């Protein structure tokens, strides 16, 4: 239910162009900005990078979940990016990251932000779901993995 309210076809990009962490993050923020969900992109970028500096959000199995709290969003927002070639995201297992799920939540607003992240994580924990995402050629195929 929350996924349905948060994701839409404009917030999915197959074949990200960036070749490094910062570029990927900027590209994902660009998706949110284009969909009218983000205020100042530079401020949001600084917030995401600040969180990345504390601890990288590249997890395992090619998945990265960049997330942060920022005053540039009014509600919880999310977007998905895929880069089959992979990018070095300083992940825990040292492997390149291919699936990027970014979530931004407003500062000082109580809400199920991390629960949303956990909900997405539960889906992409399955290898089958990750394979489907990497093999997807259309936005709709990506969304269908999340039951949308």
């Amino acid at each position: 239910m929350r996924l349905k309210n948060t994701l839409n076809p404009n917030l999915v990009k197959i074949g990200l162009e960036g070749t490094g962490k910062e570029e990927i993050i900027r590209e994902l923020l660009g998706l949110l900005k284009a969909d009218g969900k983000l205020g100042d992109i530079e401020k949001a970028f600084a917030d995401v990078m600040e969180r990345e500096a504390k601890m990288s959000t590249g997890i395992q199995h090619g998945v990265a979940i960049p997330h942060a709290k920022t005053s540039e969003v009014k509600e919880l927002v999310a977007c998905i990016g895929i880069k089959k070639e992979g990018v070095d995201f300083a992940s825990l297992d040292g492997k390149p990251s291919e699936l990027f799920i970014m979530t931004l939540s407003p500062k000082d607003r109580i809400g199920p932000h991390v629960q949303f992240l956990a909900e997405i994580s539960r889906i992409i924990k399955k290898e089958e779901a990750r394979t489907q995402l990497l093999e997807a050629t259309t936005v709709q195929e990506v969304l269908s993995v999340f039951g949308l």
Partner: protein
Amino acid sequence: MSERMMVLVLQLGVILIVSKFVGYVFSRYLRQPKVLGELVAGMLIGPYLLGSIPLGSFGPLFPLITDSTIPVSAELYAISTLGSIFLLFDSGLETDLPTFLRFSGKATVVGFGGVILSFLLGDGITYLLCSDVHSVLAPEAMFLGTVCTATSIGITARILGETKKIGTPEGVTIMAAAVLDDVISIVLLSVVVGVASVEMNGGAIQWSVIGSVAVRAIAFWLACMVAGIIIAPFYTKGMKRFHSLPLISEISFGIALLLAGFSEMAGLAMIIGAYITGLALSQTDVAHSISTRMQSVGEFFVPVFFAVMGMMVNFDALKSVFGFALIFSLIAFLGKLLGCGLPSLLVGFNLRGALRIGTGMLPRGEVTLIVAGIGLASGAIAHDMFGVAVMTMLVASIAAPPLLIEAFKGGESGYRKSLQRPEQKDRVSIELEFPTTRIAEFFTESLIASFIQEGFFTSSIESVDPTWQIRKENTVLLLKLLKGKEDSCMVSIGCGAEDQDFVRLMMVDAMADFSDFAQTVSSMKNEEMMSAKLLMQMFDEA
């Protein structure tokens, strides 16, 4: 009007000061529950003892009200009723609803056992020992039988609450059976009043009237229980949109007051409505937060209720029937102990559990007084027998708390089976070890703050290790600080298997914040200078 209000606030002031002080002495030095101290305080300062002494031109502070069965002013009695509503609303909040429902069948057996045996013994002993009572159907015998039946849920709830036993199988069974007892007693009272009026005035017994009163009471009780359980989760979910916990607490208490009033309209005691409201809300994630808020306000009102209960005791009326009253009190005592204890053996409790339930059902209170009061007002019983009822209440109320505390000592369960719920089996625990307790405490503090940001409600739980319950709707987490080797300390979160991803992510984020904080602290260059400046400023001349 203004003079009556002035007297009321003076009375409340004296009640609060004396009952709080005596309650403190009882709990600190005599190792007794505070409630006993509050009852005794009421007896001491009430209209039958010190309260009737005139204070110069002001007159007595607690003048005896003679034109009513209640010896204190209507306004003081009203405030004390509010106290009982606070108490029962909070008791409902502290009861675990799933356990309550699971044990309600057993509680029905226990409740009925206690009512039937108590009524028969009370009625029988009055017929046998009172020369002017010629039949077991005589109004006097039947009223005294009914007097024996109602359990004071208030006193029991307070003791179970004070000793943290309200959630145990025995505690829940006692609470459920005591609620049911009040319902059965009120129904029984309507039957007795009907039969007694025919015995005294002649005519035929109107079973249809009696039946409709009984049906209305039972239907109200069942309907409120079912509706409350269904509506409560939607209600709290809707209320949370306002993002104000105080608002949820206060509106919930407003609902408790409304239901208490409706309960009285349906012919039941007000406390039943208050208890049902609390019970329905007990399943929600805000239950603990509401309870904490209610307790702090309740501390001002609840002692007034117990003190006023103590004020009801008329020592003079007891003199003429003291011997009978003593025997009657013992019989009433046995009626509940055996009437509730023996059936509980049949429904899965062991001997220890049966004893706990039997003693938990002993206290008598407000409903006993209501029954005796109606008997007195209708002329079915005289002042001496009213005194017997009061003494029964007194003996039970004084003897039961120490017995109940004694019965609940020791950690062993009084229930034969394990209480573990099936879903508790799929719980996992996620742990993080820290080098010192202080660091673990620091981390825990920021972790709890992150859970609150995520929309969770947290409450600390009294336990051997520092423990918090973190709850949101159906997600219930248990955070513990466990001491390890030397000074090391483990932060452990127990959660359902389906919530472990979320808990891990929360801990990761809290850890990221924490290490960032630690780096910032270690990068501070001038902390020695800051301290030195503070000390130097101490000696600066003005």
